[in-house]
C-alpha cells in the first residue's frame, strides 16, 4: 500500500508539473505510476462508471463522441484522448480521476484501449462496460492477424466474467463471438441494410465460418466483412441486436435506432460515411445504456463533427483541400478510405502521406499492407491524379500500376517538398491528403504547403494561410472546415 501511495503522489506531482508546462497529455506520469507500483491499475480507486472502448477501427471517433456526450450530460470525465491507449495511458487516465487520498473525484473514466493490452489490464481495472467496435485486418507489425486480436480481447472477458458487460457489433462476424461462454452479459448493436453496395475486398478478414469451417454468406454487407451474415452449413448467423438501426440515410445524415422495448429514435449522423454511421450507432448504444435520454443524445449529436485529428478542410479559390486520416498499415481502414475516394463524386486529386519512418528504430515497415489494400478502388474516373511521396514511393507506384491505374495519373517522388508541384490548382473540386494517423501534423503540413502554393500562384500572400490546431479536440461547436484567408 505504501508503494501505491508513493506511486500515486509522485505521478500526480509529475502530472501537475506537466500541466503547468502545458504538457498535460504527456503520459509519463502514468508510466511512472506503473513503474513504481506494477499493480497500480488494480489499487487505484475507480469512478462509478468506467467504460473501455477498443476494436480495430472507430475507437477514437466513438470515444471522442462519448466523452463529449458525457460532458454534455453533466458528467466529469477522465479520458485518454491524447492517443495514449496503452498501460501508461490507462494509469494516467485513472490517477487523474482520484484525489491524493485515492478517492474518486470524477464521475467517469473513459478508456480508449489498444486491443493488444486488454488481456492483462482489464482484469485489474474491472470496467463496467467493454465496447468492441469491430475486429478487422490491422497493422501486421502491431496486431498480427484478427484471430490473434480476438484471442487477446477474449482473455479480458475470461478474466472478468460477470464483472463487466460486453457491448458488441452484431454485424461483425469476428468480434460478435467475444465473451461467449464467459458469463459476461452481452449487448449487441447492429444495422439494417444501408445500401452502400460495398466493393469486394482482396483479403477476407473472416476467411471461413468460425464454427464449422464452411463458407459464410451475406444477406447484405455494409463494408468489408461487416454485414448481415449466415453460414449455410451451421447455425452461425448475425445475432439479434438490442440497439438496431432500422434505417440509415447517409446523404440526409440521419439514423433511426430501435431499442429493446420497441421504441425508435432518430439521431443525426456526423458524416455521410457508413463507418461513421457505425460510430454514431455505437456511441448512442453506450449513451443509452448509461441512461442518457434519447432527446438529449440527439440534440448533442447535432453539434458534433468528425474530430480534427481525422479530417479537416481548407477552402481556397473554389477548391477544397482536405486532410483525411487513413491509417496506413491498417489494411481495412486504408481500403475503406480508398473506396470512399472512388464513391465520393467530386473530381479530385489524392495525395498519399502514408509511409512510416524507416530507420534502425523502426525497421519493420513491410509492403504486405500495400498488397492487401485495395488500390484497385482508386481506378475511378473522378480521381484525376494520385501523388505519392516518401521512402515507399516506388512500391506505391508499382502497386498502382498493377492495380490498373494509368501511368499518366501517377506521380511518385521521394521528397515530400515536391508534392505541391504536382497538385493542380484548377479543373478539380477537391484535394485529399490521405495521412497515416500518427502523422496528423505532417499530413496537415503537406496540405498547407499545397494550399500555400495555390495562393502564391494566385497572387495571394501564402503566409496569411489560416490553418488548424489539430489537438484542440473539444469539437463541441468547433468547425473542421476553414477558409484559407480569414
Amino acid at each position: 500500500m505504501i508503494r501505491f501511495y508513493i506511486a500515486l503522489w509522485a505521478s500526480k506531482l509529475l502530472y501537475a508539473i506537466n500541466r503547468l508546462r502545458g504538457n498535460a497529455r504527456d503520459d509519463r506520469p502514468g508510466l511512472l505510476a506503473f513503474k513504481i507500483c506494477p499493480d497500480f491499475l488494480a489499487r487505484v480507486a475507480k469512478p462509478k462508471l468506467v467504460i473501455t472502448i477498443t476494436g480495430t477501427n472507430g475507437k477514437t471517433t466513438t470515444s471522442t463522441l462519448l466523452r463529449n456526450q458525457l460532458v454534455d450530460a453533466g458528467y466529469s470525465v477522465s479520458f485518454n484522448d491524447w492517443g495514449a491507449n496503452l498501460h501508461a495511458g490507462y494509469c494516467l487516465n485513472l490517477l487523474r480521476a482520484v484525489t491524493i487520498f485515492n478517492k474518486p473525484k470524477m464521475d467517469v473514466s473513459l478508456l480508449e484501449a489498444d486491443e493488444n493490452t486488454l488481456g492483462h489490464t482489464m482484469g485489474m481495472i474491472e470496467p463496467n462496460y467493454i465496447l468492441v467496435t469491430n475486429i478487422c485486418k490491422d497493422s501486421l507489425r502491431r496486431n498480427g492477424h484478427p484471430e490473434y486480436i480476438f484471442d487477446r480481447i477474449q482473455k479480458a472477458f475470461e478474466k472478468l466474467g460477470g464483472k463487466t458487460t460486453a457491448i458488441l457489433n452484431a454485424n461483425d462476424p469476428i468480434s460478435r463471438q467475444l465473451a461467449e461462454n464467459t458469463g459476461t452479459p452481452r449487448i449487441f448493436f447492429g444495422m439494417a441494410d444501408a445500401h452502400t453496395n460495398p466493393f469486394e475486398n482482396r483479403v477476407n478478414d473472416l476467411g471461413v465460418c468460425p464454427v464449422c469451417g464452411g463458407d459464410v454468406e451475406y444477406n447484405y454487407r455494409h463494408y468489408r466483412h461487416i454485414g448481415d451474415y449466415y453460414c449455410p452449413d451451421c447455425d452461425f448467423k448475425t445475432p439479434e441486436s438490442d440497439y438496431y438501426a432500422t434505417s440509415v440515410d447517409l446523404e440526409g445524415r440521419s439514423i433511426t435506432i430501435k431499442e429493446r422495448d420497441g421504441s425508435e429514435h432518430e439521431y443525426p449522423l456526423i458524416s455521410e460515411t457508413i463507418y461513421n454511421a457505425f460510430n454514431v450507432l455505437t456511441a448512442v448504444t453506450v449513451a443509452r445504456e448509461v441512461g442518457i435520454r434519447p432527446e438529449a443524445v440527439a440534440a448533442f449529436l447535432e453539434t458534433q463533427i468528425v474530430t480534427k485529428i481525422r479530417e479537416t478542410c481548407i477552402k481556397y479559390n473554389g477548391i477544397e483541400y482536405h486532410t483525411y486520416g487513413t491509417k496506413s498499415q491498417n489494411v481495412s481502414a486504408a481500403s475503406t478510405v480508398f473506396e470512399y475516394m472512388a464513391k465520393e463524386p467530386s473530381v479530385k486529386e489524392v495525395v498519399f502521406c502514408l509511409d512510416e519512418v524507416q530507420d534502425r528504430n523502426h525497421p519493420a515497415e513491410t509492403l504486405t499492407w500495400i498488397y492487401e489494400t485495395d488500390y484497385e478502388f482508386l481506378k475511378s474516373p473522378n480521381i484525376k491524379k494520385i501523388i505519392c511521396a516518401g521512402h515507399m514511393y516506388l512500391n506505391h507506384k508499382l502497386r498502382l500500376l498493377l492495380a490498373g491505374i494509368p501511368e499518366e495519373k501517377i506521380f511518385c517522388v521521394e521528397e515530400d517538398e515536391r508534392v505541391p508541384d504536382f497538385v493542380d490548382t484548377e479543373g478539380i473540386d477537391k484535394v485529399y491528403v490521405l495521412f497515416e494517423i500518427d502523422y496528423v501534423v505532417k499530413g496537415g503540413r503537406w496540405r498547407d504547403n499545397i494550399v500555400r502554393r495555390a495562393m502564391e500562384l494566385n497572387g495571394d500572400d501564402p503566409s496569411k494561410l489560416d490553418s488548424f490546431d489539430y489537438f484542440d479536440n473539444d469539437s463541441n461547436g468547433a468547425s473542421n472546415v476553414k477558409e484559407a484567408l480569414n
Partner: protein
Amino acid sequence: MKKVEFLYPELCNIYAESYNIEYLSRCCEELEIINTRHGEVPAFARGDVDMIYLGCLTERKQEKVIELLRPYTERIKELIDKGTIFLVTGNAIEIFGKSIEDAGRIIPALGIFDFTAKRYMDVERHNSQYVGMFRDGDGEEILLLGHRSQFSFAYGDFEKTKFVDIEIGIGMNPDTKAEGIHVNNFFGTYSLGPYFIMNPLFAKYILRKLGVDDTLLFEKEAVEAYEYRRDELRRNLG
C-alpha cells in the same frame, strides 16, 4: 500450359500471399492457376502439377491445414523428390517440419523435414527484415529480401538445407543465419506476403524453372523498387 496450384487461398492469404500467384499469372499467359479450397482434393494428389504454393496462415488454420495435408504426406515427399516446384511462405513452412510446440502442447506436423517449431504467443511478436543470398546448385546467385512478423521460430540443423544465407537479419531462429528450406525445387521461407513482388529476380528465376518466358509485368518498376529497398535495408539495418 504449366499448372500452378494455390493451396487453400481462403485460409492462406492473410498478408496478401495471393499476390504471389496473381503476379506470376499476370506475367505469363502460359500458366494455368488451380485454386484448391479446403473442402477439395488437391490437384497434386490427382496428377502432376508444375508448382505448388502454400502461404502464411493463422495459428488455428495452420493446425487445420496440417490435418488437410496429412493424408498426402507421401505424395508431397514424392513430388519434392521429383523436383516439383514448391513455394512455401511465412509460418506455412512449419507445416513441413516434425512438430510445433505451443505452451507445452505438441502439434505433430507432416515430418517431411527434420526440424521443430515453437510458438511464443504470449511474448511480443517478432518483427524483422532480412537481406540474404540464395545460391542454387548451378552457380546462380540472387540477393533476396524478406520481412517477417511471427510468433514462432524453428529449431534444427538448417545448414545443409537452408534457402537463404542471411546477411542482415536472422535465420530460422535468432541464433542462426540459415533461413528457410531449399531441397531440390522446394523453396520455403519465413518471409511473409508477396515474396515475388519483393524479389522480382527470384520471380524470374521461378518462371525460368517453370520453363516459360521470364519477362515480368512492370519489370523495370519492380526491379527499381527492389533495388531501392535493398539499399535502404543495408543503409538502415546493415
